[in-house]
């Protein structure tokens, strides 16, 4: 179930059922995990920082709300703030926008995935978890088109199967796994940097 290839970043999209999904997957990432993780979780505009504090308690990595114009660093999990799209810029910094919703969502998984794909290309891992809409399918297709890896929650195991099923239909998954196994798999990922020879 492991992979030999070196990757540089993980992007993750999750909607309905997200709290349980994230609390299962993220704590499995080791403290020395060498890839930054960026997450879009759909939630209401008015949600407070409960999710952040809750996950930070459980995780070995630091989980923070993504801030505009801040460079992406390993050791961090970045969560898109409610009401803003999260994007990755070519210089590997994050940016936020209030562009119109995409797939009725802001933040939108597609926006994060598509902008990250242009930057990390075949060194990107896209993860689509439980959700009751189809956000993330187009973004994952783009990641896979550029040679990145698609990891999708097995819809049979998802609280809301539409989002992972949509990703399977549109993009196809390289790994289709339960939440526990997704955590285990991600934990094996490594960023070996650029080869010397």
């Amino acid at each position: 179930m492991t992979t030999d290839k070196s990757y540089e970043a993980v992007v993750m999209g999750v909607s309905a059922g997200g709290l349980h999904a994230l609390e299962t997957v993220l704590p499995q990432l080791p403290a020395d995990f060498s890839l930054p993780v960026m997450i879009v979780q759909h939630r209401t505009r008015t949600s407070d920082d409960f999710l952040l504090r809750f996950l930070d308690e459980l995780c070995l990595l630091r989980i923070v709300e993504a801030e505009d114009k801040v460079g992406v660093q390993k050791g961090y999990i970045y969560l898109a703030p409610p009401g803003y799209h999260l994007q990755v810029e070519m210089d590997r910094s994050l940016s936020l926008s209030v562009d119109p919703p995409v797939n009725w969502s802001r933040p939108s998984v597609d926006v994060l995935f598509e902008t990250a794909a242009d930057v990390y290309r075949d060194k990107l891992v896209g993860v689509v978890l439980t959700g009751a809409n189809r956000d993330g399918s187009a973004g994952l297709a783009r990641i896979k088109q550029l040679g990145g890896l698609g990891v999708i929650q097995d819809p049979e195991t998802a609280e809301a199967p539409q989002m992972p099923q949509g990703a399977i239909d549109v993009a196809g998954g390289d790994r289709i796994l339960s939440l526990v196994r997704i955590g285990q798999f991600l934990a094996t990922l490594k960023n070996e940097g650029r080869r010397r020879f």
Partner: protein
Amino acid sequence: MKFNDIDTENIEIELLLEAIYQKYDYDFRGYSRASIKRRLKRRLSLSGHATLTDMQREVLYDPDFFHVLLQDLSINVTEMFRDPSFYKAVREVVLPLLAEREIIKIWHAGCSSGEEVYSIAILLQELGLYGKSLIYATDFDETILSKAKEGIYPVDLLQAYTRNYRDSGGVGSFADYYSARYELVLMDKALKENIVFSNHNLVTDGVFGEMDLVFCRNVLIYFKRELQDRVFRLFKESLCTGGFLCLGTKETVRISQYTGTFADVVKKEKIYRKN
């Protein structure tokens, strides 16, 4: 091969922004690219052109097409009393500190279709400060500016705005501030009396007056850091000592070289005061 396409497209974007600047004087070169790229590619797919290079030709030779593109690039998304807790802080903290001024000069930079401007006008009225306020509302997008002047909005948004208004500590009846007609509402004329709408580009235009209060919300997230610095300098030069600067909830002066110029007033709401 695909990577080559991405790199080529990134070059095309740089060239197109340069072309727009040289031909039309609109300078997007300091804007963050991820959002720009999505807008351009959306227009590209609607235009029927195969590449941005093909589209650039139409941009250069057809001013009407450029104006369509300008609409795409100026993200006019806005609402009334967006972030109610912010307006609450303006009502309870900022405006009381300005209440003793003989005249209160306010600048809304990047005011879009005006929802934010009318929100503040309502606040000023409820605090009895409107009569001595002078509000400059500016944007670089002429089309959206004329919408702001009209102050006409779709009625279906009103429910959300009314809720925002109440959550922000509104004490009156929101319905007093507009008249409804079929699918539209028209903002009360009295709210417009002291508002001056005008065209101003934050990238290329300068100071035009000394302000007590500047609002610039959800504009700076579209700018790269260097351009943000230019705009912070503009605000520094536009504000009187002790004047207030209000940014969007996810914007900050703290990563700028002008961080030392501004003290926190309400940190969480990104309300600052010029030292």
